[in-house]
């Protein structure tokens, strides 16, 4: 029961999804019982951290490292994941040949080629993913961060103009509507009496 209520991903192989036959109602009831007995008691966090052995997920992790950090350290981390993916026994849906090509490209420092080949190597695995439940990401394509700080378009200039107009109007109105006396003046007036 404790696992149902508190093992929320801790130590769980994230690639494995629970398709347990127990009904949600049963789990809910179990959780309510758990609350009554162990409410607020620290209970999770004792599990060992788990690393996945699922090949396609290891490849995705490599892609994740490349998407976040293309420095030497990032490439190193990505390479570790690729090597893990090649070494694992759980390679369902992973095209090992393409993965080896990706490794070669990564070794040579050709990040874009490596990224394309890593993505291609798990096409089949990703096509078999069931609909997401719980914490599943169901990520299929890992692209680098979208840089939203491009050049100024016509609409951007329009928004700048509207913002400046609001800013100036707001400042003018705030000054016009300011209270007649500052706190200091109020203090002096009230100290002087009526």
């Amino acid at each position, binding site marked *: 029961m404790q696992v149902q209520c508190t093992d929320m991903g801790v130590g769980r192989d994230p690639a494995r999804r629970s398709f347990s036959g127990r009904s*949600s109602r049963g789990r809910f009831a179990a959780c309510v019982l758990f609350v009554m007995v162990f409410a607020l008691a620290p209970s999770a966090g004792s599990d060992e951290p788990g690393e996945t052995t699922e090949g396609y997920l290891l490849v995705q992790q490599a892609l994740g490292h490349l998407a976040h950090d293309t420095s030497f350290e990032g490439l190193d981390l990505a390479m570790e994941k690729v090597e893990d993916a090649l070494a694992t026994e759980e390679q369902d849906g992973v095209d090992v040949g393409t993965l080896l090509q990706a490794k070669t490209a990564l070794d040579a420092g050709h990040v874009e080629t490596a990224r394309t080949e890593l993505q291609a190597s798990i096409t089949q695995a990703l096509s078999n993913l069931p609909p997401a439940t719980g914490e599943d*990401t169901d990520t299929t394509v890992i692209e680098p961060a979208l840089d939203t700080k491009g050049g100024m378009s016509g609409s951007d200039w329009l928004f700048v103009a509207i913002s400046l107009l609001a800013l*100036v109007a707001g400042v003018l109105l705030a000054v016009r509507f*300011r209270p007649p006396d500052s706190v200091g003046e109020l203090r002096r007036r*009230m100290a002087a009496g009526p």
Partner: protein
Amino acid sequence: MMSAASAPAAPGAVGSRIRRVVDVIDDRLGIKALEYPVPEHANNLAWSLGGVTAAAFAIVVVTGILLVQFYDPMPETANQSLRDMVTGILGMGFVRALHFWAAQAMYVTATLHLLRVYFTGSYKKPREGNWLIGVAMFGLVILALFTGTVLKWDQEGFEALGHNVELGGLLGGAGMWFSPDFADRIPILIRLYGAHVVIIPGMIVVLMTLHGLLVKRHKISPHPSLPTDASGYQASADEPVEPFTHHLRRIAAFGLVLFGVLGLLAVLWPPEVGPAPVMGLEVTKPPWNFWWMFTLENWIGLPGIMYGSAALFVLLIILPFVDRNPARHWRQRPVAITLALLILLVVAALTVLTAFGTAKTHLGM
């Protein structure tokens, strides 16, 4: 007293027409009830920060309504829907950026408002209940920031979700709602989406209404450097008053300034959309609002977030019941002021430590 409606209006006078329109509306909706007197000091910026927070909330709500038209909360497509929205729909990049910056502004102004109330002793009798409502709203603002971060469904958002889930586990049964197993056929992203767009803003609106009504009931708190009435709870009758509508129009002016500043930030520094999330990675730092907790997490593990935030909120909740000193001026409250400065210093130091640190692995540890 003769009402403006019954007074003969000069033909063509715009002011008279506006007054007549106001009278017509007042006859039906009673809006003149808002003209109750408030002390003059209420119209300065420090005493208007709650209203400025409400203005930021209004911007967040309007931009949020536009965003939900195009955002897809399904995990498979959430990140891509953001990318499509920002790059493919005219003006939505600006709307998203404005939503982001307005949320940041709401956090900042709510914090400043809370600090103003603290340092001027405005939480003291008879305003303890309204202080608690304010603290609850502050917690909801943090929750809104947190759920909004997750909704981006990039690596940063997914790692935030991982923390959410594991902290739920640390809470035992009390954290059950945060478990993906609570409703195991529904992606937790969709439940957090529901919380972000309905539950949290709905609760904020309810509490904000109560907050406003209690401000009217207890009246604007006295300024600590000005004389009070005999009870010590209200501004002196000698202090000039203005109608509350003047307070509202000044807040509207501050709201325009805020909109202008946020609009410029939205165009010049729009938030990026990170890569779609991958399970088992922990390579990002949380948003700056959570950096102080992140440092605690680096030191003592995941429970550090829980202990740190719980300690802060427990202090905020018990404050009006522990601090029985009736004085409001900071010079007459050495303990409360020293304590607050110490806490601010600690939070600032913890924040700076994460600002100059790197992302670390905590999940599943």
